[in-house]
């Protein structure tokens, strides 16, 4: 970090070329910690896991849902004779066949009962899952992971997109950028701005990072048009970074809050999710074999269809895993059943396992983070239980 004095001195050298300025030089991609890669996709709005992975083998499903989750009879793709994949994620079938797709059908954070999206997401991203006041849960679990990984530098983790990803908030260095951002300013203007940002830590960090990213030529990505373009752009940018020094990337895909017309609402979101995953696979090339994708949502939805062809906020939901690093083509963690006595609060799917346990085991196996660190620092008070061994 430049001292204030040196900074003023450098900004005073008004004639010097941009390249000579230390903050404008190309960023050095330092040694990255290992070759494994993790992508966390937050699905905002509470994906209906029972519609994404339809448990058509459960005899009670037909009693609860009349228009939704109709299984292979209505175009869903059979996975294992019990679950079927929603037709709007059909693009992922080759991954399933190749053992690069899996899911845990009944998981949740410890959040219960109020079923607020916003608290649910905060808890999912904070990874704490305690009764702690949410305002106090400032750091995200990916950031706490970084704090416990040796060799971490700012290129190690990226949050991608226009949204603030709380999952990566915290003191450990990480970058954020949106692939659609354009930014042009002369060298002199940049230097003057660095001077005026200097005394404001928030603007200084954001501004210098923006200049650094743009000067490194990382700037924008081009992605063909179409309804899933934004999601593909996020994935393309993430893949580009992951092919370099970045090892962890996170972004979100919203549009899962399906209180009515669920088929139409989440169909579009599913297209975006599956195209994002396929873009990651294509963009990562051979690195896909070292990659794990976790798609997580804040909670599940009611097991019963509501009166408007949708579902309301529930508890247990599904987590999707993808990647070449996966031991895929299977459902992890069992199925709680849909009989009346098996439901949570007479309305929701009963979660069988804490979603954080899957995330924790992924971090354990991908980055060799010890169980102690995971259960105490990254996910405080979590009992990881047995290793589900979903990585190959």
């Amino acid at each position, binding site marked *: 970090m430049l001292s204030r004095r040196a900074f003023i001195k450098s900004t005073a050298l008004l004639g010097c070329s941009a390249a000579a300025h230390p903050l404008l030089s190309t960023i050095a991609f330092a040694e990255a910690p290992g070759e494994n890669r993790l992508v966390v996709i937050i699905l*905002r709005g509470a994906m209906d896991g029972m519609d994404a992975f339809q448990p058509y083998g459960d005899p009670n499903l037909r009693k609860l849902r009349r228009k939704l989750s109709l299984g292979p009879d209505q175009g869903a793709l059979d996975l294992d004779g019990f679950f079927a994949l929603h037709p709007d994620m059909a693009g992922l079938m080759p991954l399933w066949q190749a053992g690069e797709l899996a899911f845990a059908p009944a998981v949740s954070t410890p959040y219960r009962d109020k*079923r607020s999206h916003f608290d649910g997401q905060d808890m999912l991203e904070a990874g704490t899952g305690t009764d702690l006041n949410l305002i106090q849960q400032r750091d995200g679990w990916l950031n706490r992971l970084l704090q416990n990984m040796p060799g971490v530098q700012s290129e190690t983790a990226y949050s991608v997109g226009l949204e603030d990803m709380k999952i990566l908030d915290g003191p450990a260095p990480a970058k954020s950028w949106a692939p659609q951002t354009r930014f042009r300013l002369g060298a002199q*203007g940049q230097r003057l701005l660095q001077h005026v940002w200097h005394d404001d830590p928030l603007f200084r960090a954001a501004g210098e990072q923006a200049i650094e990213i743009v000067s490194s030529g990382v700037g924008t990505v081009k992605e063909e048009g179409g309804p899933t373009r934004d999601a593909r752009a996020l994935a393309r940018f993430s893949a580009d970074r992951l092919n370099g020094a970045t090892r962890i990337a996170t972004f979100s895909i919203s549009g899962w809050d399906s209180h009515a017309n669920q088929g139409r609402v989440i169909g579009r979101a599913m297209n975006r999710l599956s195209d994002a995953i396929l873009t990651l696979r294509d963009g990562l090339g051979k690195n896909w074999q070292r990659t794990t994708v976790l798609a997580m949502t804040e909670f599940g939805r009611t097991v019963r269809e509501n009166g408007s062809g949708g579902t309301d906020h529930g508890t247990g939901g599904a987590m999707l895993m993808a990647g070449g690093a996966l031991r895929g083509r299977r459902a992890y963690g069992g199925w709680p059943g849909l009989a009346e006595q098996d439901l949570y609060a007479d309305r929701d799917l009963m979660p069988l396992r804490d979603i954080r346990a899957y995330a924790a085991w992924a971090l354990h196996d991908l980055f060799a983070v010890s169980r102690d660190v995971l259960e105490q620092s990254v996910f405080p008070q979590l009992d990881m239980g047995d290793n589900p061994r979903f990585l190959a």
Partner: protein
Amino acid sequence: MVGYSEISAIRLGYGLGPGITAPASAAELIAEIAASAPDSRSISMEQIEALRLEYVDIVRKTRESGGADRSAIQAARKKSTLMARVADQTRLARAVGGGVGFGERLVQFWADHFTVTGGSNAFNAAMASALVEEAIRPHLTGSFADMMYAAETHPRMLTYLNQVRSFGPHSVAARKRPDKNLGLNENLAREMIELHSLGVDADYTQKDVRQLAKLLTGLTYNFRDQRRFRPTMAEPGPETVLGHSYGVSRWGSIRDVRAVIEDLARHPATANHIARKLAVHFVADDPPQNLVERLAVIFRETEGNLSALYDELARAPELTGHFRAKVRQPFDFVVAALRAVGVGHDEIMALPPQQLIARVIRPMTAMGQKWQMPRGPDGWPEAAEAWATPQGLAARIDWSTRQLPKLVGPLPDPRKMLQDCLADTASEPLAWAVPKAETALEGLGVVLGSADFNRR
């Protein structure tokens, strides 16, 4: 030392600019709010419905005539798009020109509190604007209960939160068509409690949400039908929400909806929730507890008199103590930047709508605030960290140097502009840097990219 005129313009209004005189006292500032009442510029549901009926009629006629000539449909579609855009333009113009804009800031605050989105078509976009004109502006200085009732029963709220498709499971309509599986939709009930009144930390349960959802059945909207309440959709019998019983009439009634909203609006938890939100929005992300408590007491004592809240807020010493604690959201930033370079109400209204979209509305997406499209009913985030991101800041500077110059005549001298928009509040580094810019454009980028300008 920051004077009251800077406090009123920068913290409570949309910022300073050439020719803008800021109030020197809270009383003057409060008097300005009256200018944000609805007027002849306001879009109404009546206009929207008339155009929609016309559109549906054209579509029907085209279909009947074989559907070969689609030009009439295209023309009608253009007309509705134009209507939605003029509404956006009016909203922006009112923020850009007209006093320091405390009233318009309050309009924005309440519009965000009662968030709806523009949705996927021009009619929904126009309806989102109509909610602001018909539910927010008329009640801006009145009682919270009146504003809440107007917002919750507004057509756009009812369509956005799926209330139009919520049927009482034992309603006449549901029993008549058992094959349709008609039933409750909890969405509006949940957000009414969680976001619009008590707040998620308050003491309520899923059962209260469910009971409220039942009580709300019957409340609906259809553009062909003026009735907001259809008893055939309503769940019969009483419902208990937060310990109070409602719905004594056999088939439900709009009076029960009114009664439950009155009670939610006057609930002590609502006072705390609104007080905190106001303090967060206008003073600091982590607001001074003392101010929150004062506002909450006023809310309770006046049963939600909004003018009394604004009065306390406008006089709060915390406004000075926490100067620049907040980061301007992209809409605030864009408006403040336009004011800083001397663009006013009439210049905004004179822009061809497609230019307004290309040069002002669309660029806000890259700054992280897609117009009328917050990601959920909780509206836009408040935290500085959510806005001062590398990508967000880059987008602000990019807009300042690529789009803003196309909206003004000759670029102002950056040194004069600095004085015009920040008066004596500019920091020493900024005052040092601006005269060193090589071009006026770069100087503009330095002013508008600075933390001084982006904070309030």
